[in-house]
């Protein structure tokens, strides 16, 4: 069991690292810790879509009713325009399930325990 847990943690760490690499491709518009053209991502897991203070969202996003979880992020990142018609995010999605999961692994650890978010 210990060996299995070690492997799982290693896999998870690797996903976060790979997700961080993938995230650099988001940094034209987003940063973890402050709002830019897109909203900041610290604390995204569990947050309501359109929920970052002092960021002006489209009505489509604000009214989407989405709570950001691994599942809803996965759906949105697959196809933003289909998930939230009217979003201003000029990105049609990440086709690779693996890459979406790695990016979500990175986004998920952007919480209050992360130095970037303090």
């Amino acid at each position, binding site marked *: 069991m210990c060996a299995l847990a070690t492997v799982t943690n290693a896999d998870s760490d690797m996903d976060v690292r790979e997700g961080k*690499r*993938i995230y*650099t*491709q*988001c*940094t*034209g*518009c987003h940063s973890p*810790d*402050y*709002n*830019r*053209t897109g909203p*900041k991502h610290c604390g995204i897991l569990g947050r309501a879509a359109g929920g970052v203070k*002092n960021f002006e969202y*489209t009505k489509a996003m604000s009214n989407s009713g989405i709570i950001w979880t691994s599942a809803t992020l996965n759906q949105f990142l697959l196809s933003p*325009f289909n998930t939230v018609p*009217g*979003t*201003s*995010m*000029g*990105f*049609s*999605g*990440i*086709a*690779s399930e693996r*890459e979406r999961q790695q990016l979500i692994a990175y986004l998920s650890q952007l919480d209050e325990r992360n130095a970037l978010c303090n």
Partner: protein
Amino acid sequence: MSNEKKQPILLDRRSFLGNTGKIVLSGTAIALMSGMSSAGAMSTDSSDSQEQDVRILNTAIGAEHEAVAAYQLGAESGLLSKGVLNVALQFQGHHKEHIELLASTVGKLGGTAIDAKSYYDFPVHKLKREKDVLTFAAGLERGAISAYAGAIPLFDNSDLAKAAASILADEAMHWAILRQALGLDPVPGAFFS
């Protein structure tokens, strides 16, 4: 000559996100930014797709405004030496030119270009030395390059890919110059990832 000058800024860099995303601008927007007349270009697209184009282009304009503001922040910081300040103002000028073209395209699509925000939430507290400002700017440019690098192979329209590649090259030069100013290897590898 003026057309040649405008070719590299057919589309804003920051509207291309993700390594598997595709640009979703309609044929109308592509045609308008390629120099076609609005009457000819607009004849085939639905109003929905034009509204979508305006949203995407306005996101790009927003990013350009952010870049202008970021360079302004650096210029007014008092942290930049004269030579670096001149370069920063030159790059800022490029972003202003991008805004002019993008805003013109939005207008031709029947939309209204967004204005700059009155406030940008920059990490000002982290900017204490010239090196910090340069690192901040280099990060912005790197993000732009990554966005283009991931998007170019996915363009259906080869003219758009060509234009985006031209912009990527320009941004890569910005990034290299900023890295050089930071004392880093301006071209850290044979490939960019």
